[in-house]
């Protein structure tokens, strides 16, 4: 395995910029997820690393070696595709053998390596089946084995779980993460699913419109989003427009005053995650904004309550099912304050507020 370095990577199709000035260093054995809405440039970047696309500018290094001009078949990357892309006219074992043959692994050694990788993905017993005889999850496991058999320097996954149903997605996801950790694979994992990215990655790169918005560990990106796009794209966020009124106080455009922990000069928005907002019948904590419950959505494990504040702004509060029950005088599932029309205080701490310059 080897580290991967992207230096000012740039890709343009005609007049439209697909990837702009992308620099990133992926450490040896690290899993980085590229996350973003479709068309954000994440797949384009992955395809540039694999060599299917040539960057318009910039350099790609694998293990310190410049591979920017190296053709696909000499790059030593192992790629897993969204639609499996198994060779339909070959058996499972033949699919895996293909890469070994291309890498001139001696025939005597091949069989052992085939058995080895198929064991890793629990597909050894189906080695003589054809892809059409396998389920989607099984096909993707074979594709993973096929990519890993050649012992690539980088493991590339392009939306590998998108074609699987929900339960299988979770299963294969955990399997990929476990394999990646056990083998210490330097991995790039492209996905549009935020939960997938959060669960599987060491670090994630959030992309939008061809630009990297933020790179960091899942908790860092979630707790301290760099801008409003990231905050909005990852999970949910209550935004208030306005500006700093005085030290430690943010005045919203409609007149509400929110105490914040960290001043950011020139802040134009403040945000707070819905799960950080508690509802109470009496004011408590650093911020307590009075309002009226407008609507409630029951989501099973959670309750989403929309409160219309006296200032006129709305705030969303997410309550875990059963959490807020007795302690706050009946606030929570089944408690009166979640019924529409009830007067409540939306309470949250200054430390939970995030300031945005944009």
């Amino acid at each position, binding site marked *: 395995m080897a580290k991967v370095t992207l230096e000012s990577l740039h890709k343009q199709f005609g007049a439209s910029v697909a990837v702009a000035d992308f620099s990133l260093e992926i450490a040896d054995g690290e899993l980085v997820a590229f996350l973003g809405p479709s068309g954000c440039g994440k797949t384009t970047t992955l395809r540039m690393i694999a060599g*299917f696309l040539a960057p318009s500018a910039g350099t790609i290094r694998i293990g310190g070696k410049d591979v920017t001009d190296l053709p696909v*078949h*000499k790059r030593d990357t192992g790629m897993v595709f969204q639609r499996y892309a*198994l*060779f339909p006219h070959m058996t499972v074992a033949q699919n895996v053998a*293909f890469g070994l043959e291309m*890498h001139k692994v001696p025939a005597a050694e091949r069989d052992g390596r085939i058995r080895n990788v198929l064991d890793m993905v629990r597909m050894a017993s189906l080695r003589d089946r054809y892809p059409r005889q396998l389920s989607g999850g099984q096909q993707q496991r074979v594709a993973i084995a096929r990519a890993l058999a050649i012992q690539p320097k980088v493991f590339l996954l392009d939306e590998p779980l998108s074609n699987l149903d929900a339960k299988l997605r979770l299963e294969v996801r955990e399997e990929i993460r476990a394999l990646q950790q056990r083998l210490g694979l330097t991995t790039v994992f492209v996905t549009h699913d935020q939960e997938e990215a959060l669960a599987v990655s060491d670090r994630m790169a959030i992309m939008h419109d061809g630009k990297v918005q933020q790179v960091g560990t899942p908790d860092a990106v979630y707790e301290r989003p760099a801008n409003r796009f990231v905050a909005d794209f990852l999970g949910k966020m209550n935004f208030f427009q306005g500006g700093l009124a005085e030290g430690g106080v943010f005045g919203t455009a409609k007149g509400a005053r929110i105490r914040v922990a960290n001043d950011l000069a020139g802040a134009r928005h403040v945000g707070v995650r819905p799960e950080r907002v508690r509802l109470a019948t009496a004011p408590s904590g650093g911020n307590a904004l009075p309002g009226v419950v407008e609507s409630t959505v029951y989501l099973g494990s959670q309750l989403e309550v929309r409160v219309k504040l006296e200032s006129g702004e709305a705030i969303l509060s997410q309550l875990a099912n059963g959490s807020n029950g007795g302690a706050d005088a009946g606030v929570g599932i089944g408690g009166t304050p979640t019924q529409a029309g009830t007067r409540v205080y939306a309470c949250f701490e200054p430390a939970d507020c995030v300031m945005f310059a944009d």
Partner: protein
Amino acid sequence: MLRRRARFPWARFLHRAFVALMYLFMLCPLIVVVWLSFFKDAILYFPPSGYTLQWYVKAWANEAFANGFVFSLQVALLAAVCGVVLGVMAALGITRYRFAGASSVNTMLLSPLLVPGIVAGIAIYLFYLRAENTLDRDIVGTYGGLVIAHVCLTIPWTVRLVTASMAGLDPSIEEAARNLGASGRVAFMRITLPMLRPAIVAAALFSFIVSFENLELSLSLVGPGHTTLPIAIMQYLEFNLDPTIAAVSSVQILLLGLIMLVTDRFVKLSQVV
């Protein structure tokens, strides 16, 4: 279902009868030709006074038919092979590379299907005459000249079938091969080509048949000693009307039918066409 059957028993019967009639309508000429080939009388006479195999013996003894058969076989095989190779390359070019005029090239390659054979034959004849003058060598009436004309006839089939098959392929399969260390050429030969096999086999089959039974195009292009079977049959018909023709046709029907059956064993034609 039960109720429907009870209420419309005649509908099912009608449907089956219609299907049976359609088959009969299509097969009738073939059946009659084969039947006629066994009639004893030299002048077609119904009902026949008896049955015989002598027309098959006569047909085989007729040099024009025997030579025509062998010549047609050679031309059709060569035209099918060349047509398939060129057609596959053309289909790849059209589907793989976005270039200006790709769709007009596609239409042009399919156009031999649209032009009446006799017109195409004369057009090629005139072109060959001009080419003979410029190159100062014989083309009309040569083996090569005829094969080249037939290749034009076979290319549309390959282009059509292979383009359709290419459109259904997932491009990431070939990419996966490249990613695993195969060069573009190896990935194509080992992965893409095998996936196109059914379309290519079907294309070869149709090319062979189209070339083998072609009359109109060949008419103006054959020379002495180089006569295809369909032309030999036509020439014979100008002066004779005995069942020899039926015997020759029966052999041709049998041969083509056999080829189709054998092909279908390897590639299910119904899936490709």
